[in-house]
């Protein structure tokens, strides 16, 4: 049995039943990574030593009868490299933080460890989470396990690819404008962005503070729900953390959506979407209908304004959040400088990649005096209107259904010369972040090239359970698209 092909919960179960030891699981995972990661490049750092040590600790705890209520006890989890792991390199896939070792854990890491999970490594990503193809990483691009000539998506490209290639049972990604959902769609796995404030941002290296959320990427809805339960919770260290009433997300894994109202925005299946992707969504809609959901199309306003508003706000916040990388307290510092001004300019010019620099400048522009009102303040007003329009929609519908991305995985190496075109690919995902809503991407088919198609279900604030229920029901009633290792186009 190739352990690495198990789902996270199945592995957890086998560990509880003493069929597999934690150490065996960790070793198997490490072996698989070492065998295959030269191809996919999903990992930046393997935490072999700490993982093996932790495996022994967790095994002792399990043997002593502890962690009985933790379904993920002993399960290796991989983590996107913008989430701080104490004493282990956390690079954000940037030269700027190439050797940075934070002296603290992100809150989510503490939660994972308390649940008995074993952190196995840090995953490749777009530099500082800015990108949609995982091609901006300082450590090289990630390849899509379904077809290595294609991108895995971004910015959590490493996370989605690792899960798809059996290099991780499950993973943590982060999502600011679609960075969990879109790579999940491109890699044929399941990824969830929770309601803003659900998972603590403490220790998540900030990109767009009012938009960022950490979330699970896994091979099915159940794994995502289980991981979400471990990660979610109020954290006093994060002022934007929300105290929720109900964290029992796994209770939503019920095969029943009778009467649930699902709306498909006409604009989401109108122009710009690939025909095959559209067909995949409509087929999925049919499945949901057959399971008793009421599915219809409707007019969603403000769709065209989400991307400009998103990029203004995200770039503005990013330009401020990344100013701290100045070569003074941590991270990269230029070797050739004669004065302080050169330390700043050369460090930042040498340490950041092109996309990051681009967004620093856009951010500076939209916040600069004279332009603040026309761009940044305007974007905040548009954001208010977008939120309002979703509030209206959710009076009528329980969920919104649509494609996660307008295409399947793009080809490698063809995307970075036209940044605007790349930004426009985020059309279905960014509005969700602007309004703080929860959303999931699940595979709903493959195109004629054999590349996965992802569908997105969006819920109202705090309604992850509705999303999970619908996603679970769909998943239970279709054959599934399989995995790349089952004879896909590797």
């Amino acid at each position, binding site marked *: 049995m190739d352990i690495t092909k198990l789902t996270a919960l199945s592995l957890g179960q086998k560990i509880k039943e003493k069929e597999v030891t934690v150490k065996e699981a960790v070793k198997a995972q490490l072996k698989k990574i070492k065998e295959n990661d030269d191809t996919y490049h999903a990992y930046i750092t393997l935490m072999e030593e700490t993982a093996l040590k932790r495996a022994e600790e967790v095994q002792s705890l399990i043997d002593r009868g502890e962690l009985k209520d933790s379904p993920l006890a002993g399960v290796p989890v991989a983590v996107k490299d*913008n*989430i*701080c792991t104490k004493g282990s390199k*956390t690079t*954000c896939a940037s030269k700027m*933080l190439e050797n*940075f070792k*934070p*002296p*603290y854990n*992100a809150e989510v890491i503490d939660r994972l460890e308390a649940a008995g999970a074993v952190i196995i490594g840090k995953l490749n990503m777009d530099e500082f989470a800015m990108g949609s193809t995982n091609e901006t990483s300082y450590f090289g691009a990630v390849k899509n396990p379904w077809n290595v000539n294609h991108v895995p998506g971004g910015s959590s490209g490493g996370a989605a690819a690792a899960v798809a290639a059996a290099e991780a049972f499950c993973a943590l990604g982060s999502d600011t404008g679609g960075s969990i959902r879109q790579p999940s769609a491109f890699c044929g796995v399941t990824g969830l962005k929770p309601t803003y404030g659900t998972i603590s*941002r*403490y*220790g*998540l*290296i*900030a990109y767009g*503070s*009012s938009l960022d959320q950490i979330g699970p990427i896994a091979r099915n809805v159940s794994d995502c729900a289980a991981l979400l339960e471990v990660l979610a919770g109020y954290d*006093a*260290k*994060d*002022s*934007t953390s929300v105290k929720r009433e109900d964290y029992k997300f796994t209770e939503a894994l019920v095969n029943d959506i009778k009467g649930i109202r699902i709306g498909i925005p006409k604009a989401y299946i109108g122009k710009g979407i690939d025909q095959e992707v559209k067909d995949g969504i409509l087929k999925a809609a049919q499945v949901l209908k057959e399971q008793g959901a009421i599915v219809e199309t409707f007019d969603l306003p403000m769709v065209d304004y989400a991307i400009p508003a998103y990029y203004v706000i995200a770039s*503005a*916040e990013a*330009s*401020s959040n990344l*100013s*701290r990388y*100045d070569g*003074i*307290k*941590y991270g990269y510092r230029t070797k050739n400088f004669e004065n*302080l*001004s050169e330390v*700043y300019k050369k460090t930042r010019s040498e340490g950041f990649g092109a996309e990051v620099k681009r967004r620093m400048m856009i951010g*500076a522009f939209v*916040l*600069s*005096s004279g332009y*603040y009102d026309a761009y*940044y303040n305007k974007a905040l007003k548009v954001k208010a209107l977008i939120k309002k329009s979703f509030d209206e929609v959710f009076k009528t519908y329980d969920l919104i259904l649509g494609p996660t991305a307008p295409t399947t995985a793009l080809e490698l190496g063809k995307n970075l010369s036209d940044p605007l075109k790349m930004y426009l690919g985020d059309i279905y995902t960014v509005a969700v972040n602007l309004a703080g809503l929860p959303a999931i991407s699940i595979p709903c088919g493959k195109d004629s090239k054999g590349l996965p198609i992802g569908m997105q279900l969006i819920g109202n604030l705090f309604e992850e359970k509705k999303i999970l229920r619908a996603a679970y029901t769909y998943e239970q009633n279709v054959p599934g698209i399989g995995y790349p290792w089952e004879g896909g186009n590797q």
Partner: protein
Amino acid sequence: MKQYETVIGLEVHCELATKTKIFCSCTTAFGGEPNTHCCPVCTGMPGTLPVLNKQVVEYAMAVGLATDGTITQSCKFDRKNYFYPDLPKAYQVSQLYLPICQNGSIEIETSSGKKVIGIHEIHMEEDAGKLIHDPWEDCTLVDYNRCGVPLIEIVSEPDMRSAEEVIAYLEKLKIILQYLGVSDCKMQEGSLRADINLSVREVGAKEFGTRTEMKNMNSFKAIKRAIEGERKRQIELLEEGKPVLQETRRWDDNKDTSFAMRSKEDAQDYRYFPEPDLVPIEISDEWLNAVKAGEPELRDAKRVRYLSEFGLPEYDADILTASKKLADIFEAVVDLDKNPKEVSNWLMVETMRLLKEREMEPEEIFFEPKNLAELIGLIEEGTINRTIARDVFEAVFTGNVNPSVYVEEMGLKMVCDEDAMRITIAEIVTANPQSVEDYRSGKQKAMGFLVGQTMRAMKGKADPQIVNRILKELLG
């Protein structure tokens, strides 16, 4: 010769005396080895987030209320973005769009009478770290202990017209802050800093002239000299037909002149935007009223009360209330049943003398009021005389000694044994025939001399009144 008017506005930064920093639980204690009062949050490490200290908001509200300002009941924080090594996040969390307080004022009194100085706004912000210029190597060292200490910035209207008014404003502000207990206002430690915005214009002109800024002034002396120096410099320029440049200048107190600071090469575009990591503050009427109710008696009210309740002269009331610490000690000792005027004298005379001698601020007094009360009691009982009492007081001031124990240990009790005194007095009289002669011929001063000599011989422990009586008896 044209007549010029000086127009001055002040931006005062005051470090709040909370126990912890504004956004993290590090101590705000002054000093300490570099970077030992720091954590990942206040050193701007990646992934860290701020959490607001409630006490900062309450202190800021208290200051706003005590200066008759309007509290902005819905306020928030903004980021002020710029690069400098003392700012680890490369942005300072401050308040631009909705500062916590607006439109207050302070009444000052100068030689020209009373005047109201407007306060444009008060806002909360975080302090930056400290830069230490290395004397041995061509480099600068950065210490973030101070980074994140909560500040309020008090921005005045350009209502001041002279150094005298500026000093009066600062002194009044200092007293209010001390009375509220929100800051120790130690200018020499940097917990109170003033930026001076100064321009000149011809008397009668409607427009303001171009102003310059002098930053981080931290002594009243330097402020006075800086204002006078800058006024002179600007007038000279205008008289020569040259323009005053809007710039930041550094006042060099040693050279008694100011220098233009090298202008930063890029525009100071701070790109303010609302801080996304902090949620807005909503101050309810209940909260506002609770802070108002908790306001201690402020200086002006106390001064009036000292006149009416204790019957003290204005002069005394002024000095005692100039420092909350002094006022507190005064009230505590009077509470222990001591005569207010007596207590007042001890504080105004001996205490002030010792403070000046040791270059101490009243806030640094550490002796307990009960010890002063006891000292006064010993005088009342006749256990010691006033001369000895002054020495005992010095011991109380410097070591917080228990006066009774001290008097006992040092053998300072007043000598009342008249027989012993007569012996000594007789010796003094014999030794000073000229003085005796002088006294008998009408020179009263000679008596004082003889008394003094006797006191010296008796190591100050005699009751001077008895010495006086005996001498007069002897000499006729």
